[in-house]
């Protein structure tokens, strides 16, 4: 290989390594020590299985009127859109489909994935909070080891980091694919979702969610507080949406159902 090509190839490798370090792994993986585990034991205990009680999800998410208003003073009833995104919102409303891709079993994405009528399991380990979500078999990794995500590849649930402010774990997620995610306005690739995790008592976990978006929103949009109850005897179960999904939505946005071969379905 000619020398200039060799140099070019080598520089590519170097730049890719540098990128990987910036964007994903911590600078250097450090195995947790006994002291790290001890420190973990002094934090609020989120580990366990939680579910939003029947009727709670709707109350928490709001009805499109005044999300998060209850007991929290004046908050914007509607997202305050920039002129550019207000224009986009009009187009999207005009072309609204009967249903979204969740009908085809694609996961809804954050924040909708945190408001499902199924349990989530939180696992605290040194440097990380892991959330196992039963609905659509999703997993979120929230890194509390100090790493930063500058420009991650877009994904359903974003890339998440967390830091403690007193008894509250503040989780910030960035890097979102354009999927429905339960957000009723157009959002940009700069959107950030902030979730404040706090125990109001050992059996009650509050997650207060706020959306900021420098391109789409002129001010933060609060989605309200989701209240989860602890279920000490529960486990998270398997949920394979593709197993026997008879609902669908087609490319034009029309919803339908597949009633063929009732006896051929599994189980």
């Amino acid at each position, binding site marked *: 290989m000619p020398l200039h090509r060799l140099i070019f190839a080598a520089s590519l490798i170097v730049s890719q390594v540098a990128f990987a370090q910036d964007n994903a792994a911590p600078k250097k993986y450090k195995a947790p020590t006994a002291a790290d585990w001890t420190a973990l034991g002094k934090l609020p205990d989120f580990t366990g299985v939680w579910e939003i009680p*029947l*009727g709670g*999800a*709707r109350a928490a998410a709001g009805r499109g009127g005044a999300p998060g208003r209850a007991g929290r003073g004046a908050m914007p009833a509607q997202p305050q859109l920039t002129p550019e995104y207000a224009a986009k919102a009009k187009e999207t409303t005009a072309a609204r489909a*009967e*249903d979204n891709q*969740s*009908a085809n*079993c694609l996961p809804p994405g954050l924040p909708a994935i945190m408001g*499902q*009528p*199924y349990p989530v399991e939180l696992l605290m380990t040194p440097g990380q909070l892991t959330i196992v979500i*039963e609905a659509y078999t999703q997993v979120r990794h929230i890194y509390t080891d100090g790493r930063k995500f500058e420009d991650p590849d877009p994904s359903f649930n974003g890339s998440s980091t967390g830091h403690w402010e007193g008894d509250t774990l503040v989780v910030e997620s960035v890097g979102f694919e354009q999927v429905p995610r339960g957000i009723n306005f157009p959002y940009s690739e700069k959107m950030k979702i902030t979730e404040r995790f706090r125990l109001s008592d050992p059996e009650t976990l509050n997650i207060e969610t706020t959306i900021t978006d420098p391109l789409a929103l002129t001010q933060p949009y609060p989605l309200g507080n989701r209240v989860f109850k602890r279920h000490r005897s*529960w486990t998270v*179960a*398997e*949920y*394979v*949406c593709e*197993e*026997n*999904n*008879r*609902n*669908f*939505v087609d490319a034009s946005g029309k*919803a*339908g*159902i597949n*009633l063929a071969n*009732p*006896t051929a*379905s*599994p*189980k």
Partner: protein
Amino acid sequence: MNKPMRAVVKGMVAVSLVAGGATVALAHHSAAIFDASQTRVISGTVKKFDYSNPHTWVWLDVTNDQGQTETWGVEGMSPNYLNRRGWSRQTLKPGDKLSVTIRPMKDGQKAGMWISGKRPDGEVLLMNGEIKDKE
């Protein structure tokens, strides 16, 4: 159970149905095809019970006005949801007689969303997983 007490219990069932209905719609990952303004009762015999995600399906053989057997499909809550509220894959068996209240399809196909099912002995199985014993 004395009469006034029974009336109180019935009142509670009615309330929980309303509250449950509002919430459970959220749990159906695609409810656009069902007519939320209509209910219909279909009676027949369970042909098959799919205890599967994302929804259970009860296939019910129903005799129509012409005396022919038609198979209806009724979409219910997921096994994950129902398991935690007292159901199992044995809750409905082929041959079980049922009257099922459904939200019918908007397009008239022989299917619907499970609201409640009633057995000949009076036991009622609600969409939100509650099972009300015969009185």
